[in-house]
């Protein structure tokens, strides 16, 4: 099966087969990452521009590493969103990148829909590395990969996402991806951080639960979102201390979940706010495997976007 898509803008418009293809391809690439020489020539001659309008050390390092492992040529551009008020700068940047004849643009941007905007100027492939509060498809894919590794399948599994759903592109992409793959999703957090009609999001919708104990009681995995502490200044929650008491995931909370419940976090963590120290360091936490899988998933996405087929011989010729 071929991927047959020019861009990866989100998971909403992917089929479950396409998602499965990405995850299968990522599994293959993970094997490459375990080798002594962790490099394949799959994207030799392909030029990728990493365009980051929002600071993100982790996602950026992960993409860059994935690109290097695939032998792609890389150029980097970064600019803090705060210094870019007008998008003609974005347009100019994109026109410049276009003039440099790159093949793939990996972009992170603070405005929802920025990638759609970019696609008006660029005929090259665009990979969304996060746009505003809209989508973060590769994060959701690496989360799914991590869960699938443990379970073998996502079908019928129950995942609870906890925290600021309203402002989270990670939550939105996870909901789309997980529900398409047959998992059941529950969201939990303060009512001020729940967007309108969140229950309708995803394939077949999600369950909304304000009571943390109930929300985790059947969870096979819980995905804890980072709380933006500056939200406290916009009074979406009264204090981080109270937040931790009501929505913080402690070992007591974990004890209410079924045995073997997996704990995830997209990082960076606020220990003592959304996640207790002992949970972050517990055996159930897969936070570091998530990071490893992030590289494999991004290799898979870039490889498929570039038109690749899953072909073991190519992976093996070093």
């Amino acid at each position, binding site marked *: 099966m071929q991927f047959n898509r020019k861009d990866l803008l989100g998971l*909403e418009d992917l089929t479950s087969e396409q998602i499965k293809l990405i995850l299968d391809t990522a599994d293959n690439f993970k094997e490459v990452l375990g080798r002594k020489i962790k490099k394949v020539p799959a994207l030799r001659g392909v030029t990728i521009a990493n365009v980051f309008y929002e600071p993100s050390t982790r996602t950026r390092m992960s993409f860059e590493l994935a690109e290097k492992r695939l032998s792609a040529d890389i150029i980097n551009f970064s600019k803090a969103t705060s210094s870019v008020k*007008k998008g003609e700068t974005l347009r100019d940047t994109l026109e410049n990148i276009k003039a440099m004849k790159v093949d793939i643009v990996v972009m992170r941007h603070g405005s*929802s829909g920025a990638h*759609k*905007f970019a696609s008006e100027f660029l005929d090259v492939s665009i990979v969304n590395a996060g746009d505003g509060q*809209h989508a973060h498809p590769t994060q959701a894919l690496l989360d799914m990969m991590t869960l699938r590794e443990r379970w073998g399948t996502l079908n019928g599994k129950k995942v609870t996402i906890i925290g600021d759903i309203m402002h989270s592109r990670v939550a939105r992409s996870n909901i789309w991806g997980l529900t398409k793959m047959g998992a059941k999703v529950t969201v939990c957090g303060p009512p001020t951080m729940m*967007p309108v009609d969140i229950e*309708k999001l995803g394939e077949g919708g999600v369950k909304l639960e304000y009571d943390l104990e109930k929300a985790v009681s059947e969870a096979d995995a819980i995905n804890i979102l980072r709380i933006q502490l500056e939200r406290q200044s916009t009074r979406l929650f009264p204090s981080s201390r109270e937040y931790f008491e009501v929505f913080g995931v402690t070992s007591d909370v974990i004890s209410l979940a079924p045995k073997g419940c997996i704990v995830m976090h997209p990082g960076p963590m606020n220990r003592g706010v959304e996640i207790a120290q002992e949970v972050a360091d517990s055996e159930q936490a897969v936070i570091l495997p998530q990071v490893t899988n992030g590289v494999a998933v991004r290799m898979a996405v870039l490889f498929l976007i570039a038109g690749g087929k899953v072909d073991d011989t190519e992976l093996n010729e070093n």
Partner: protein
Amino acid sequence: MKMTSWKDKREFWISGAKIADPEAGKIRAGSVLIQKGMIAGIVWQKSPETELPVFDAEGLVLAPGFIDIHTHLREPGFEDKETIESGTAAAIAGGYTSILCMANTDPVIDDPSVVEYITKRAEDDGHCRVYVTGAVTKGLEGREITEFFHLKRSGAVALSDDGKYIADSKVLRTALEYARVLGMPVISHCEDPYLTSDSQMNESFVSTRLGLKGAHTASEEIAIARDIKLAELTGAHLHIAHISTAGAVDLVKKAKKKGIDITAEVTPHHLTLDETMLESYDRNLKVNPPLRSAADISALKAALRDGTVDCVATDHAPHNEIDKQVEFNYSPPGMLGLQTAFPQLNTELVKNGDIELIDLIRLLTSSPASVMGLPGGKMKQGEPADFVLIDPDEEWVFEKRMIKSRSYNSPLIGKKFKGRVKGVFLEGKYLEDVS
């Protein structure tokens, strides 16, 4: 807009057309006699017996020229977006012979000198009649009211801080009391700014999906409810600009029933475009108030039919490409409206059976005129001979090259319309090639 030369000379008939009389609610065959730029008489026969010159309007509908009570002309201050010259050219191309411009220019129209400046510029370079709205508060800052008496004396016909809600209730109360004595309507942009800060679109499942911050309909309704209370308290004429929600319609309906002096307008885009279109993240669809839900749209259409909403106004808001070709978050709200209002509404509302053509004409002519107390808009002897000639069935495509505005921020470029403005008379003078 040099019209005086026609006043003494021209005496002629317009014949062959169907005459739209918005006050009588009828469209029927007739002929109109024009003398000195005024309507001198109407006969209800297709061709009059006359020695005078005859303008043959066979097959078309002759209606009073449209009147827009909500136009942003952008001059002075933002001439890169629109000028009085280009904005009035767009008006004429859309069949509008009179417009009321809003006060959020730079400098703000909060001083008689700016009213006089605009009036003078419109006389020199304008293509249609221009009426001026003065600001309610100095600098549109919502704190101190402007000199209403002076503004009125210099020619302002209404007062508004449009673009901004006057959040301080005491300030609005003062303004309404002062305006009442002068008989000036106060136009309110109703939006609770605390509930809508940073918002990009209507708050709903669509905003949840798109990850764009939403403005809930409650933010508009809370603002309208307070304004109604103050209108009741002061007895002033309150006009609600660009009403957009079903709940807002209910509030206005109840206030009217109670006898409060309140009127309301709705824009063509709030009647025809809905929030789901934003899935394209097309910045030309970003407006304030935002495009709402299908349920809101049907409530607005019903409000047009039952008279809760008095008239249609465009909220013509030009923004140039540099300002619009940015990420959705950074794009200023507003779209063009003057050239597409009639064809869009004729296509979406009249041809779909929501309202009759004569109702649409009334909503664009006599209704806005009576809301703002402006001349024109009536098919009656003694009224100015400002007309629009319409072919209600012509199919055509709205193309970018047809735009007379200095900006091109219309989501309707490329759209196929039914119904077209074929010509305009201004004070008895026929303006060639309007569209």
